[in-house]
């Protein structure tokens, strides 16, 4: 039971990359200078996240976040930041839709080819589709990010 491979059954959902980003998120910080910010709130479980965005014209230049929640929501926020940096608003929204499909269904078969590479980074989160209630943990930071880009102050993943 204490052998590493005995965690196989747990690992399919909590892959190493999730554990790692959940434990040591690289982008968990409030930005000093930012163009937009929004909060996300999952009333069903109490998860909360805030996202700050610095833009460079239409391109996302920096993103920081503060999250209070489970490993999945923190890891998802951190991976999200890495995925959207230097992307346009439109690309980011397309990524969100693709990720939402991935999180809900476990695959994103009809995702645009252009998204294939960035989506790879998010692939470790595909396992949440088995847990409908955890899907919201994974998508919550994205909801907040999109809300910030849209100029809405609050998002809910309800």
């Amino acid at each position: 039971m204490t052998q590493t491979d005995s965690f196989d059954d747990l690992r399919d959902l909590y892959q190493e990359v999730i554990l790692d980003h959940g434990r040591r998120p690289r982008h968990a910080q409030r930005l000093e200078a930012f163009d937009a910010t929004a909060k996300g709130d999952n009333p069903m479980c109490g998860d909360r996240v805030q996202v700050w965005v610095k833009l460079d014209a239409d391109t996302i230049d920096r993103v920081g976040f503060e999250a209070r929640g489970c490993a999945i929501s923190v890891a998802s926020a951190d991976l999200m930041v890495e995925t959207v940096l230097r992307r346009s608003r439109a690309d980011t929204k397309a990524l969100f839709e693709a990720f939402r499909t991935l999180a809900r269904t476990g695959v994103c078969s009809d995702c645009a080819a252009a998204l294939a590479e960035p989506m790879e980074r998010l692939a470790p989160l595909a396992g949440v589709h088995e847990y409908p209630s955890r899907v919201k943990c994974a998508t919550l930071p994205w909801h907040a990010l999109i809300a910030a880009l849209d100029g809405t102050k609050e998002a809910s993943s309800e």
Partner: protein
Amino acid sequence: MNVMTNPAALDVAPLDVGRIRQDFPILTQTIRGKPLVFLDSAASAQKPRVVIDAMVHAMETQYANVHRGLHWMSERTTEAYEAARDAVAELMNANDRSEVVFVRNSTEAINLLAHSYGRGVLKRGQAVVISGMEHHSNIVPWQLLRDAHGIELRVAPITDAGELDMAAFEALLEDGKVGLVAITHMSNVLGSITPAERIVRIAHAHGAKVMFDGSQAIVHRKIDVRALGCDFYVWTGHKLYGPTGIGVLWGKRDLLERMPPFLGGGDMISSVTYEQSTWAAVPHKFEAGTPAILEGIGLKAAVDYVRAVGYDAMAAHEASLTEHALSRLAAVDGLRVLGQAQDRGGVISFTLDKAHAHDVATLLDRQGIAVRAGHHCAEPLMHRFNLDSTARASFGIYTTHAEIDALADGLIRVREFFK
């Protein structure tokens, strides 16, 4: 009398009643040694095997509380329960699944509306219009609202034929004070179907919202809330071959969003502190506490069943039964049918001279035939016709022409008996 459309004209395959009856285990029962002739479906319908099985399957293989569980059983149960909302939304052609609020029954749906729309949106001095053929469940909640909140209650009269008096109805709306029209879509006593689209047009033209009590109508007609154009529509699961303990309030989303909650508690909140709580989004805002989970699952099976049978086939079958019943009953000496609406469903109330309705019901029961007798929770309607009670026969998809013959023969015996 023009009882709905002629089945042949509808171009649907006639209902195979024999096959349908095999889906309802209870129909093989005998009563006092006689085969059960169940003509009380308007009070509550029998349950098909698929409904029973769906509930049993949930209890035996996947059950837990819904919405907040992160574990397998809870996830699966939540999916099954929420699938009922999808099925109902589709059945009624709702814009959105979030417009479907689950309640216990029609009665609770109307009370919810009287509370949350009545106290929360209507203003003192505004009026609510009901009709002269409402079930108590669509009278008393508005009386309570009237007495507690200063909302006027107006009653649109009905004609001797048992139809809504449309001129009088429109006149009630003329002063612009009416905020809500709450009217039955089909009378549980007279069988009359009200002209829903016209009611909506008139009400909306006068700035009033419309709620239909579809407790009976949903069993007999395909309900398309977008085509009807109404604002709220309520019905009750146990009459649509589903379990007891679950009913539906459908409402337009923007209206539901404007309404304050009704019951407070778990599941309907967004956050709670002692100072203040905030509410979940619709429909959850109106669903406090552990919902009727198993009943939702059973209701989904009932909705699927009804859709598989098909409303066209059901309506045609019932029209044919009703036509047959009206002609057979007309031949019973001293029998008077209450109401002669042009547009009617499979519910027939009647009186027999020389025999009180209760005696009629008991003597029919003695012959294995179940009909209802009394005021049918519609005392003001009874008084309108100077009656205290009637007997009532009502039909479901499993009702046969032979059962109607049994009723007519049984009534002839009762009549002889009391001669």
